[in-house]
């Protein structure tokens, strides 16, 4: 009877989730060193946590209206698509609630950005006769252009021909006179006038739940290839833009785990926009573009929410993502009053070609960075989907539709990743000497310990299994370090581990160490576009050079070793592969797209036999698990929230493991964050003390000794498992921050996990959550 009552109460509390009340009990946990209230409040308000949503409605006065100049070009059950040919801009009307998104900002007033934001599309071009300077952020409404509009199924195809453009203010003032013949072309050119003679096609089609913009690479026309070249196209710069804090909501960036930037009046605090290249740095091409973000944008998406749980927009870059950058402006940046988020697609870049051995000086040169089409999908979100959880789930559904994910067999308990550190080396009198951290027998011993403790589900990886040890010796062929045990012992150990776990050998086929076997410098070490080798030097290291391999060489090595892995029946944990792409020179110039082609072939070959560290989205299809899952974002001042966007996308599709918890300096708070983000624990362990690693290149592993960690590993695993085993294979339905530091996660099976980061005990929905701990609710107790 009591159980039944409880169930009823839970259902009742679920149904009135929106009017949840939180009771705070003023007692503090002993573990928690009580901080002054000011510190606790700024901590929970900081961008290290998710903030409480402002649920107010978007005021009708800020709705964008459909104008007379907007022509209806397509319509379906949910949406209407309008086109304004004067400024090449589109409007999408959500028929369910009448909300309109526009690809430009009506009556924009934004200084030098006015023309860009007043147009649906913008370009950047390179002037070859003017020292290869790039003219940035040009809106099409500032260019004399012609277009051919062709109706296609569900949309339009617009062929654009771009003509004269004034790059200076004087030129703009004189332009009407020029049209009337008062000034000659030459006079105008001296004042900054240029005939671009560029062109491309833009196809925009209406989809069930959004629109698709497509620019075929083939359609790009450059009629004066020795004068003007198209460097980038800016797609829909004003889409989703808001002014100051007029509209409640936020912008979403896939930076690290995920970041939100809320719409608020920043009073000019921020001076520079957020900008980053999708999929991380291009080691092979050093141009002027810099990012201050320390995570790559690992998924090609971005989004806006106009009114939480009201209207949202998720941009998914389908093509052209390898050479695209994301820009986000908050109000105040460059004195603009707008909040903007848009991608730029690059086709050509300039770089400095040095002619001297020390890399100084040189000439500007031009290089192609992409010859791919550009396709961006915009999903219109409303109601429950108009928030970051909805965005994550929408992208998840999108990836699933592409057959990215395989059906997993779920077990009862969550898996744990254990990385056994076997050997490394340090400098000795002559060359280097090997350091044993765990022998084959040690690993058997450690693994049996965990089995005895009742852990059943493992992802085991071996680090430094190879001849010579971990540092400096990867990529390595399948050749075990003899000092740790004989080959047959190694094989026995692998067989033993295989009985209970996924086991993989750590290897790196992208970045090679200076003592890696079989590498021929001329053949294998990649040259950057400026023809200098892509080598990172570390004079104080044991192995002083780390170099990028030509993608073709990576492929050859991976091919050659494949059979050996198969014979052993062992998987590979790839470092660098799956999160690195770069341009390179190999008797010709190759783009990032060329590098990814080789890498995808490796991944295809090792499909289902590999795990990856922090893989980019193109790797999801091939990985069994996500290692080193980011749990933070770049901690930029302009970020307001940390959200588990990446985790929402991948939840239930593959196990996600944290970075090694040996290095967790945040204590219990971080364990809670793992529960909150649905990420599984990972540890690096060795039999011998970590201080043996002093003076090696992996000194940053300053704690790993099994004897010190064995109990903690089991305790922490159980703590996390007790919550997360209830939601294995489930997706997140909603994630609400009730008060700062108190999060309520509702999963698709009705289980609710409450996470209390505060120093006070909290009571929600009749569930008591002690300070710094989690509690289960919903269907968990049924």
């Amino acid at each position, binding site marked *: 009877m009591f159980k039944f009552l409880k169930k009823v109460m839970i259902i009742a509390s679920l149904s009135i989730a929106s009017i949840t009340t939180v009771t705070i009990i003023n007692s503090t946990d002993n573990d928690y*060193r009580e*901080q*002054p*209230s*000011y*510190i606790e409040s*700024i*901590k929970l*308000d*900081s961008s*290290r946590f998710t903030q409480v949503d402002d649920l107010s409605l978007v005021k009708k006065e800020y709705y964008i209206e459909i104008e007379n100049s907007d022509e209806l070009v397509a319509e379906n059950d949910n949406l209407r698509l309008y086109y304004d040919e004067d400024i090449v801009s589109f409007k999408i009307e959500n028929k369910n609630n009448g909300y309109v998104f526009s690809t430009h900002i009506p009556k924009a007033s934004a200084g030098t950005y006015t023309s860009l934001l007043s147009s649906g599309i913008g370009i950047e071009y390179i002037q070859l006769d003017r020292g290869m300077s790039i003219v940035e952020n040009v809106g099409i409404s500032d260019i004399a252009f012609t277009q051919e509009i062709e109706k296609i199924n569900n949309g339009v195809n617009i062929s654009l021909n771009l003509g004269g453009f004034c790059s200076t203010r004087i030129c703009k003032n004189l332009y009407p006179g020029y049209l009337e013949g008062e000034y000659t072309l030459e006079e105008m050119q001296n004042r900054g006038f240029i005939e671009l003679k560029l062109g491309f096609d833009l196809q925009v089609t209406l989809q069930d739940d959004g629109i698709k913009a497509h620019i075929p690479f083939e359609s790009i026309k450059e009629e004066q290839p020795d004068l003007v070249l198209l460097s980038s196209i800016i797609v829909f710069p004003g889409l989703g833009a808001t002014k100051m804090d007029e509209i409640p909501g936020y912008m979403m960036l896939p930076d690290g785990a995920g970041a939100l930037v809320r719409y608020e009046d920043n009073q000019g*605090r921020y*001076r*520079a926009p957020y900008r980053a290249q999708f999929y*991380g740095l291009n*080691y092979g091409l050093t141009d002027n573009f810099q990012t*201050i973000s*320390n995570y790559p944008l690992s998924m090609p998406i971005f989004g806006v929410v106009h009114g939480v749980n009201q209207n949202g927009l998720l941009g998914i870059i389908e093509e052209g993502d390898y050479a695209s950058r994301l820009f986000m402006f908050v109000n105040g940046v460059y004195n603009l009053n707008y909040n903007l988020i848009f991608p730029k697609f690059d086709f050509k870049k300039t770089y400095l*070609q040095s*002619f*001297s*051995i020390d890399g100084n000086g040189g000439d500007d040169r031009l290089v192609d960075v992409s010859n791919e089409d550009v396709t961006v999908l915009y999903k219109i979100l409303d109601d429950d989907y108009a928030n970051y959880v909805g965005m994550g789930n929408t992208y998840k559904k999108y990836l699933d539709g592409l057959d990215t994910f395989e059906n997993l067999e779920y077990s009862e308990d969550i898996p744990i990743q254990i990385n056994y550190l076997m050997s490394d080396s340090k*400098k000795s*009198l002559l060359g280097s000497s090997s350091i044993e951290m765990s022998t084959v027998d040690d690993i058997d011993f450690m693994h049996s310990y965990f089995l005895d403790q009742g852990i059943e589900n493992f992802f085991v990886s071996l680090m430094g299994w190879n001849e010579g040890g971990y540092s400096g010796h990867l990529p390595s062929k399948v050749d075990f370090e003899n000092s740790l045990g004989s080959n047959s012992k190694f094989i026995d150990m692998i067989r033993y581990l295989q009985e209970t776990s996924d086991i993989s050998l750590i290897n*790196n086929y992208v*970045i090679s160490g200076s003592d890696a076997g079989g590498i021929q410098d001329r053949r294998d070490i990649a040259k950057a576009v400026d*023809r200098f080798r892509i080598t*990172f030097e*570390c004079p*104080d290291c044991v192995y002083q050079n780390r170099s990028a391999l030509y993608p073709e060489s990576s492929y050859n090595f991976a091919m050659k070793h494949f059979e050996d892995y198969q014979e052993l029946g062992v998987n590979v944990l790839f*470092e*660098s592969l799956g*999160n690195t792409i770069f341009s390179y020179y190999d008797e010709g110039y190759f783009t990032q797209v060329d590098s990814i082609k080789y890498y995808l072939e490796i991944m295809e070959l090792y499909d289902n036999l590999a795990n990856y*560290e922090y893989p980019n989205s193109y790797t999801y299809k091939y990985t069994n698990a996500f290692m080193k899952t980011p*749990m*933070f974002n*770049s*901690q*930029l*001042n302009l970020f307001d929230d940390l959200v588990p966007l990446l985790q929402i996308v991948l939840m239930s599709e593959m196990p996600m493991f944290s*970075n*090694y918890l*040996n*290095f*967790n*300096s*945040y*204590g*219990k708070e971080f364990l809670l964050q793992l529960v909150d983000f649905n990420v599984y624990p990972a540890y690096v362990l060795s039999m011998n003390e*970590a*201080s043996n690693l*002093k003076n090696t290149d*992996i*000194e*940053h592993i*300053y*704690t790993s*000794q099994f004897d*010190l960690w064995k109990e*903690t590993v089991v305790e922490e695993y159980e703590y996390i498992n007790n919550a997360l085993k209830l939601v294995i294979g489930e997706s997140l339905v909603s994630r609400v921050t009730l008060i700062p530091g108190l999060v309520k996660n509702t999963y698709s099976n009705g289980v609710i996990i409450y996470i209390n980061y505060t120093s006070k005990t909290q009571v929600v929905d009749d569930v008591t959550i002690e300070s710094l701990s989690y509690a289960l609710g919903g269907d968990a107790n049924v």
Partner: protein
Amino acid sequence: MKKIMIVLILSLLVSLQFGFTAKAESGVRYDTFTISNGRFVPTQTAYVALTNRSEVYGESLDKPNDIFIDDLNYVYIVSTNNTTKTGKLIKFSLENDEVTIFGQDYLVNPTGVFVDSNGFIYIADRGGNKAYKLDQAGNIVQEFTKPDSPLFGDNFFQPKKIVSDNSDNVYILNNGSRGLAQFTQNNEFLGYFGTNTTNPSLRTILQFMFFTKEQRNNVYSLSPSEISNVAIDDRGLIHTVTLGDEATGVKRLNINGENLLGEVYNLPDLQDVYVGPIGNIFTITQSGYIYEYDIEGNLLFAFGGKDESNQIQGLFNVPSAVAVDSMHNLYVLDGASFELQIFTPTSFANMVHNALELYQDGLYSESKDPWLEVLKMNDMFDLAHKGLGNAYYSLGEYDLAMSEYQEAMDRDGYSDAFWEVRNAYLIDNVWILLVFFFTFLVAYVINLKLHYFKYVFAPVKRGIKFIRKKSKLLDESLYVYSYLKNPSDTTYYIKRENRVGYLSATILLLIYFVLYIIFIYNFNFLFNNRVVSDINFLEEVTKIFLPFILFVIANYLIGSIREGEGRFKDIYITTIFALAPYFLTLPILTILSHGLTYNETFIISLLQFLSIFVTVIYFFFMVKETHFYNVKETFASILISFFTMALMLLGTFIVYILLNELYKLIYDLIMEVYYRV
């Protein structure tokens, strides 16, 4: 300290370059380091950046200049409004949203704030050329103005920073002056305190010696570096930091103004100093690095960095002040972004502070478990090893203490623990020693009568003789003993009768080298200041063989023009023989070093000195005998040989540089052709 900077910068580069391969995610945008064996090594994040604020409870910070936190968790910030050219003091509570503003009507450009244990607030107003003492209600209790005392001189009175100690002295750091101006509570100037001294470099000494008076005046002024900031701890001891001083940038002054801290790791651009709740010293540099030391000046953590774009949390543009509250939260003001950044300690940092607190209170054995916790988190944390060593030492577990001290490279601790271990060993085994000693004594006494030792040694001698006869090589190598007994005669045999060949001498040289390598690896770490892992084979080869070969060549050349008798071969062989005393002492030193503590250091030093001294004498006679010189000629020959050696090195160096430039030129030419085509 430049090396430290390089390490810090490097680590940033590493994380940018191939960041996602090996390093663990820290959740903050800076790396945290600690000291391990004198090197910076990465450690867990100690402090997390929480926020950047330009206001507190709605009150704008304007341009915040200085910050102080009292025991009741009230924060005091003095700031300047650059548009109205007025200053203010903001006082706010960390426990509730209480905020008060003082002094808006009279402060001009306040740059220093301090609150004493009675709650009196001291403000240094640089722009107003005054300092103030206020009560908690904001009433001015006392003003400090420019003293008329001749001691003060005709400096401007621009109070930059201000503190007051337990005995009611007020110390004002005056802009541009070299020390702290000491006042009574009643605005009486007492004199300067804590003035920095100058540390003349070799260069300045040489300049001082050789320059004329005018030149000296022009070239440099021997004035000490300026104190950049000041803080006071619970015991009333004044801490200062000095700009541009690498060695003693951070000082703790006793009542006589003498520095109580030794040399601490710091960067030369120190901006502010603050003493935390358990006496920990915090400094911040203009380049944006925060260093935390324990009460003894051992570096615990170094972290932070520069971000001129003001976009990254936890990095600074121009940090101007740092303060710490009772929970070890750090408050840092930035003079360029006009913001207050707040850092909170991680549970790892709390763990370290906890252990440290026990340790500093002398509760060594209680601190054992906390230190073990810290070491679980970071096995390379020197201070934790040292703390644990002390804990074991106080528990009488000297063996364990020894190994912890060795891990921490704490030689004093190691020596003490070893003394205890050795003592225990000696007590346990003293009877064996006594038995040996008396047996030998008895045997010796009997031998005096019976001479039976010869029956024991004669066969050995015969054996050696036999082997020497059989093996020419061995015989020649062992000739070194004869040489050491009688250099002049043996030199004759070497010269005239080719007593020794090249090969055997070379073998001897190689044996020296092996002895040397064994020595540098196995010399007890108590006396061995070398870091074994840094030993480079090529470097050691160069160190031993290069001077030798250079000398032999130089001396031969000089000998041949200065009528020396020695042939090349003679010089080669006798030089090797003459060096024997030094190298043959090395194994003795190696073995002996393992039985000695710091108390017996003199034995090692004496032995080392003797071996070198004897070698020098042999060396001198070697040259003299080999060339058949008189004393004066010998001196000349040796000196000229050394000079020649230097010239040979220099010549090689110049040729190397020229060749290198030529190589670069040709390479660049080829590159240019290759890339342009």
